[in-house]
C-alpha cells in the first residue's frame, strides 16, 4: 500500500490538461487548476465549453490527450484499467443524462453504488432509504426508474451519487430538470455534503445558484478556463 498523502495537499491538481476527441479540435485546452479537499466549485460555460469533458477526466471515463491529473496524490492518467473501479468507488457522479437502468427499481439503481463495494444488503437497504428520503423519493423506491418523471430521475441519479459518502462529488447539471424550489433543496443537500468534507464540483448553467451560494466558480469557454473567481478566498 502506498502512503496516503497529507490532507493539506490539494485534492485535485490538473497540469496543462488537454483533451481532443478529434484531431484538430480541443474539448479542453491547456487547463491547469487545483481544488482543495472539501472545496465547493461551480463549473460554468456555454454549451460545448468542455464542462462534461473536465468531469469525465476526473473519474477516468476519458483520458487526457495531454497533461497530468493528480487526484488524492495519485496520478490517474497513469492508472491501469483495473485501477479505475477503485477510483470510481470513491467518487459520486450525477451524469448529465442520469444513466439509470430504466428496468430496475429506484432502490436497485441507488443500491448499485454500494453493491459494487460489497456492502451487506441490510446496510444497503437502510442507507438507500435514508438518501432517497433526502431527495424526497422514498415512496417511489420500488418503482422502475423509467416510470419516474424527468426531475424524479435526476434526483435518483443524485441519490446514487451521494449514497456512498464519496470523497469527491461530480454533478453535471444536477438541477436542469427541477423546479426552482426543488433546485434549492437539492443544492442545499449537495452543499451539506460539501460541508461534511466532500469535495464538490457542480457543472451548471443556473446563474442564480452561483449568486446564491457564492462559491468559487470556474468559467470555461471553448475548452479554456476564462475565469476562476473567488478561489482561495471562499474555499475552506
Amino acid at each position, binding site marked *: 500500500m502506498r502512503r496516503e498523502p497529507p490532507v493539506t495537499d490539494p485534492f485535485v491538481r490538473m497540469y496543462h490538461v488537454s483533451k481532443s476527441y478529434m484531431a484538430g479540435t480541443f474539448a479542453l485546452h491547456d487547463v491547469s487548476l487545483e481544488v482543495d479537499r472539501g472545496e465547493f466549485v461551480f463549473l460554468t460555460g456555454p454549451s460545448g465549453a468542455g464542462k462534461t469533458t473536465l468531469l469525465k477526466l476526473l473519474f477516468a471515463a476519458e483520458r487526457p490527450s495531454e497533461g497530468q491529473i493528480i487526484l488524492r496524490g495519485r496520478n490517474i492518467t497513469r492508472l491501469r484499467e483495473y485501477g479505475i473501479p477503485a477510483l470510481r*468507488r470513491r467518487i459520486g457522479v450525477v451524469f448529465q443524462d442520469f444513466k439509470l437502468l430504466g428496468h430496475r427499481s429506484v432502490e436497485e439503481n441507488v443500491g448499485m453504488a454500494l453493491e*459494487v463495494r460489497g456492502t451487506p444488503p441490510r446496510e444497503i437497504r437502510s442507507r438507500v432509504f435514508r438518501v432517497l428520503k433526502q431527495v424526497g423519493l422514498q415512496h417511489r423506491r420500488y418503482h422502475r426508474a423509467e416510470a419516474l418523471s424527468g426531475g424524479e430521475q435526476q434526483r435518483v441519479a443524485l441519490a446514487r451519487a451521494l449514497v456512498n459518502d464519496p470523497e469527491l462529488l461530480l454533478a453535471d447539471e444536477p438541477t436542469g430538470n427541477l423546479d426552482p424550489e426543488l433546485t434549492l433543496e437539492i443544492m442545499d443537500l449537495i452543499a451539506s455534503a460539501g460541508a461534511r468534507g466532500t469535495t464538490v464540483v457542480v457543472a451548471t448553467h443556473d446563474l442564480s445558484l452561483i449568486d446564491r451560494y457564492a462559491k468559487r466558480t470556474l468559467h470555461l469557454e471553448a475548452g479554456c478556463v476564462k475565469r476562476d473567481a473567488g478561489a482561495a478566498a471562499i474555499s475552506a
Partner: protein
Amino acid sequence: MRLLVVHLFYAARSAIRGLWASPVTTGVALVTIAVSLVLVGAFGLLVTNMQGLLDRVGEDLRVTAYLEEGISDEDLKRLALLTQTVEGVASVETISKDDALRIFDERLGGRSGLLEGLEYNPLPASLEITLVESQRSVGGLRVVVESLDGLPGIEELSYGEEWVEGYARALSMIRGLGVGVACVLALATLLIVGNTIKLAVYARRDEIEILGLVGASRSFVRIPFLLEGFTQGTLAALMALGLLYILYRILTPSLAAGIELLMGHASPAFFSPFQMFLLVASGAFVGALGSAAAFVEGGRR
C-alpha cells in the same frame, strides 16, 4: 472472507435478476441453446446405437478352418479344444461333413437334385471360429489365422479376407464420419450458443456500461453474466434432455421394428446416466464459455 460471501451473494442475485429482468433475451437464448443441444444429443444417440448395430455385424467376422479328409471324431474334438485356447478366439463350432452338405443344400435353396447327383460327399468338415471383440480387425484376424495355421488336422483356413477388409474400412469410415460430424456439430453448437449469448449480453450493454461507471470491478460485472450463461446452459441442456427422451419414446417402437427385421434383435438405447451428465455439463460449460467470450472483444467501451 465476509466480503467474498457478500460478493457471491450479489453475483447470484444479479444473475437471477438478469434472467428474470429480460425474459425475451433469456427465453430466446434458452430455446436456441436447447435446440442446438437437441441436435448434438440426437446425433449422439444415433451414433451410439449405430455403434451397437455395427458391433453385432462384427460378430459375423469368423474364420472357417477346413479339416483334413478322414479326421477322426476324437482328433476333431481335441482340435476344437486346442483351437479354443488360441489367443483371440471367442468361440469354436464344429461342423461335420454331413452338416456341411446340409448347409450347402440349404444355400442352394433346397433344390434337391444336386444332392442326389453326388456319389460321395465332397465337402470337408470344418471349424467355425469367432473372434473376441478386440481382435475383430484385419490385423487381429491375421494374428489369429497365423496361430491356427500350424495346427495339425487343419487343411485350409478361409476367412473372406476381402470382406473383412471392407468391413473394417466401413467401420473406421463410419466412425471417422461420426467423429467428423460430431466435431462439426460441437463447433457449430459452440458458435451458435456463443453468438446467442453474445447478442444477449450486447442487448444489455447499458447495464454493463453503468455498472462500470459506478465503480464495479471487472469481475463484479462479469461473474453474474457467467452465472447466467451457466444457468441458461444447464437449463437448456435439461430441456434438451427432456425433449430427446420424448422423441426417443415416440420413435423407438417403429424404429426398433424396422431394425429388428434387418439385423435381428435390436433395442435402441437412451443415454446412460453418465452420458446425460455429460450433456448437461457440456450445456453448462458452453453457456459459461459463451458469456465469457461475449466480453472478449467487447471489453470496456
